[in-house]
């Protein structure tokens, strides 16, 4: 027996409701986040990730209450991301009941924030989210770049080097979203997933583009991810968590059943 690969349903939350965009644009309503989280908990999800995509202050307060409600009813690890910019934001989410926070754009704007956060709260609760897009063309060596603002803004940063730097600064886990594939359901970008997973000593969560259960298997085996994150295939009941876990086990992957 060994450490299980984790399945993490991800809930994009806006103004207190779960939504999931296709290519970050088209929004469909998938329900109350606490109810959705409870459903996943009962089904045997290994963790839950909430990504707050709300832009307003009022919406942010709603998120704190949502996290509080969820944390008093669901007893598996909870990661909260989206709009985490200061140690105060982290303190608020941890106090509300989050176990980890995910830092995205703020790490790009101010990498030192990652170190400050890890020193203050411990690496175990600092996840750095990386949105990467392939920028090399056919025939060139593979190269992936970090993008921000929902994939619209290139940064010129090499994704693999960036991941290593984030871990050096104290990130305890990397949440890697391959942007060119997110929401289009062609599977994870296995190249960048594997490159980053092999380059860092902390766990890597693969995210972006899951459309079927083979994608989860590939993410673990070819992508060498330590955890696989998916949203819409679970939200719209295309597959259940137990189905996904059984499928992974049938393909030789250690899971918690």
């Amino acid at each position, binding site marked *: 027996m060994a450490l299980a690969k984790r399945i993490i349903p991800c809930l994009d939350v806006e103004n207190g409701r779960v939504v999931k965009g296709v290519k970050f644009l088209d929004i469909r309503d998938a329900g109350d986040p606490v109810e959705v989280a409870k459903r996943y908990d009962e089904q045997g999800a290994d963790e839950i990730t909430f990504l707050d995509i709300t832009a307003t202050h009022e919406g942010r307060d709603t998120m704190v209450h949502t996290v509080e409600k969820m944390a008093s009813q669901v007893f598996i690890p909870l990661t909260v991301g989206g709009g985490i910019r200061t140690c105060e934001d982290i303190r608020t989410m941890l106090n509300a009941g989050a176990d980890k926070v995910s830092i995205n754009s703020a790490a790009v704007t101010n990498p030192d924030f990652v170190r400050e956060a890890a020193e203050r709260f411990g690496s175990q609760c600092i996840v750095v989210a990386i949105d990467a897009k392939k920028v090399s063309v056919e025939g060139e060596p593979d190269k992936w770049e970090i993008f921000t603002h929902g994939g619209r803004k290139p940064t010129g940063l090499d994704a693999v080097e960036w991941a290593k730097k984030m871990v050096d600064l104290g990130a305890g886990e990397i949440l890697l979203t391959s942007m060119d594939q997110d929401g289009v359901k062609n599977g994870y970008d296995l190249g960048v997933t594997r490159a980053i997973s092999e380059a860092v000593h902390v*766990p890597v969560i693969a995210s972006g583009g899951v459309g079927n259960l083979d994608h989860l298997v590939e993410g673990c085996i070819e992508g060498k991810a330590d955890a696989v994150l998916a949203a819409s295939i679970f939200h719209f009941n295309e597959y259940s968590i137990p189905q996904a876990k059984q499928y992974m086990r049938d393909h030789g992957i250690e899971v918690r059943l």
Partner: protein
Amino acid sequence: MSSIAVIDYGMGNLHSVAKALEHVQPGVEVRVTADPALVRSADRVLLPGVGAIRDCMAEIRRLGVDAEVREAIASGKPFLGICVGYQALMQFSEENKGVDCLGEFEGRVNFFGNDLKDADGERLKVPHMGWNTVEQTIDHPLWANIDNGSRFYFVHSYYVKAAQSELVAATCNYGVDFDVAIARDNVFAVQFHPEKSQKVGLQLLQNFLNWDGRP
């Protein structure tokens, strides 16, 4: 109604453990506190902890939590340590260039290392993060209704090796064999997070709230 003191020394998220205790035993009085009087008068004591051991030990000493822990353990009331609250009971941790701990148990806390490998030579990530199987090595009231080999949620980069193997209550393997639970008289301590380990974790907390402190 019984009361439990969750010792608050400013490190980490105590909300989860408090909520989990209230969930398994509605009406239990959970005191998240470092006040010696409130700890002393509680029926049960829980020492949690996350983060770096140096900071944890510094706060434990600054707030006098070391004395509270010794007193609680000596009193015979049920005592549960979780994660860094387990590691802190050992003699010494090699984290942060070496930190002296409370020395309630003989043993050390060691680093997994950054070149950890499994039996097949596959590299293992550190921290050890996620659900791993816990092999119970003794019968104990805290293992009631928990299958041997159940998976619990872990997140840590340092592991305990207890010197007195007869006190080890469970082991785990992650590149190395290590001790994930220890038991002596009224004390039980675990490396994993029962408050984050879904059904089996809630069962362990329920068992703790039902326990009279006798092995």
